[in-house]
């Protein structure tokens, strides 16, 4: 019989794992490795990504391997695994939190860097998606379809709308305030210079990661290290 499903053996199985692993296991402990999640997974259908294997890996204590893996950055966040899970495990949530673990450990920054333009747009305007088109062919096609110049401003005007939706000055200053005091602005400033670092030790990982307790309940944010 598999040790995994033997409740008596569990503490022994996890005995050499850090508290961190326990926290992440949370919901994952319920996993019975049925694989329904993989059958519904878009990432699994186009790559070797395999949520069942990742969960198994974490349950066996190999959190670090998962955190270092490129696979972690392959999830589509579609939640179809969650929808089909007979044990109601919210795996995309775990992935989101593991990605932070990965970033803290120094991995994955190359992926996040690609998202920087959208975050900067958000900081600059209060909106994440703006009217400008990165591909001029899109504007040309829209010109043909709409009998206008193809610019969104002209299309909106033809529809009887303002040429651009803008959030108020107050809203923008509040968005920027929240970004500044929550540390987001600092992250955005540092992002371009972020380099992949050497992996952190498990105890270091343990210190910076605190997301859910064993029951999957939120357990608080990591405590700031005043000496850092």
């Amino acid at each position, binding site marked *: 019989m598999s040790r995994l499903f033997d409740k008596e053996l569990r503490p022994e199985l996890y005995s050499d794992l850090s508290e961190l692993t326990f926290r992440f296991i949370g919901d994952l402990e319920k996993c019975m490795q049925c694989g329904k999640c993989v059958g519904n997974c878009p990432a699994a259908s186009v790559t070797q990504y395999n949520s069942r294997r990742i969960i198994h890996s974490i349950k066996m204590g190999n959190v670090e391997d998962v955190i270092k893996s490129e696979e972690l950055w392959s999830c*589509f966040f579609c939640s*179809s695994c969650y929808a089909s899970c007979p044990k109601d495990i919210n795996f995309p949530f775990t992935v989101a939190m593991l990605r932070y673990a990965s970033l803290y450990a120094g991995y994955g920054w190359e992926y*996040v860097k690609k998202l920087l333009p959208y975050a900067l747009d958000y900081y600059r305007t209060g*909106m994440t*998606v703006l009217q400008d088109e990165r591909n001029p062919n899109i504007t040309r096609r829209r010109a043909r379809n709409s009998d206008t110049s193809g610019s969104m401003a002209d299309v909106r005007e033809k529809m009887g709308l303002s040429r651009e939706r803008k959030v108020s000055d107050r809203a923008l200053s*509040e*968005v920027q305030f929240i970004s500044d005091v929550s540390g987001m602005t600092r992250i955005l400033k540092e992002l371009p210079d972020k380099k992949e670092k050497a992996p952190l030790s498990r105890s270091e990982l343990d210190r910076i990661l605190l997301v859910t307790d064993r029951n999957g309940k*939120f357990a608080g944010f990591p405590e700031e290290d005043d000496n850092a």
Partner: protein
Amino acid sequence: MPRTEVLEKVPIDDSYFLFRSCVSSSKYPGIETSTEEVFARLGIELEDSPEQSCCGGFITFTSLAEVTASLPAVARNLSIIEESGKNALTMCNGCHMFLTEFGHFMDHNPDITNKVNEMLGMLGREYKGSSHVLHMLEAVAGLKERIKEQITNPLKGLRVATHYGCHYLYGFKHDAVDDPYMPTVLEELIDIAGAENVTYPEARTCCGSGLTQIIIHKEEMSLPFLKRKLDSLKKIEADALIVVCPYCMTILDRGQFKMEERGIEEYGVPVLYINQLLGLAMGIDPVKLGLEAHITPVKRLLEKLEASNA
């Protein structure tokens, strides 16, 4: 099949706070105008506010900054909704997910809410948790009978397929108004609009955006997945694909153009928001419905409609 126990609890009000979406305002303004036009016909007022910004949830789920950055941003928007004294109507699966998830999280973690409110307090705002956030699918499901009364130009002979989008039915599975794997709300509305329902094997799969995969793994993952979906859609020769999420709309509408641009395949299936389809069936001007903003042309669909009504 819609879940009657959820449907019964959907607040159907005389007026809502219309929560605008960045994608719809900036890329597909027809999503917003069609919603305004259709709801005006139903006698429902929609109010918005320039104080509303991007929902703010994307920050966390794209790994840009932790939940500590998203929470106050989302709570700020929720406080603006609460100020209006109305329930909110969202047009985007993402906006809906982030507003409801973060709201739910704060409602169940009072200590966190206090911290968030400390920050909002500095801005003269407060999150109370007093407004309900509706997804468009819930609203149109609840208003089905009233929509039926307003159909003046049934879309006879139009073959229509659906795409629900993941973040409502899958991510919100416990509280969603419809079943994640056998949803029928859109199909019923297509019926009401007088069009014919057609389905394709990949109907329930992701649009291919993968939230950020369209940016971080575009060539390796996002586009191959999208192609599979579009190939499956093409085979059934649908006249239109109906969505309830502006982000899905972006991927499916522009994805077809991308494939065409690269000489891979021509699809030509126009992608419409549910209210744009209902708007056509209510005889609303296609320009007003913003159909000209779409990249995959809607022209052929309009010509077919004209011919069948002639």
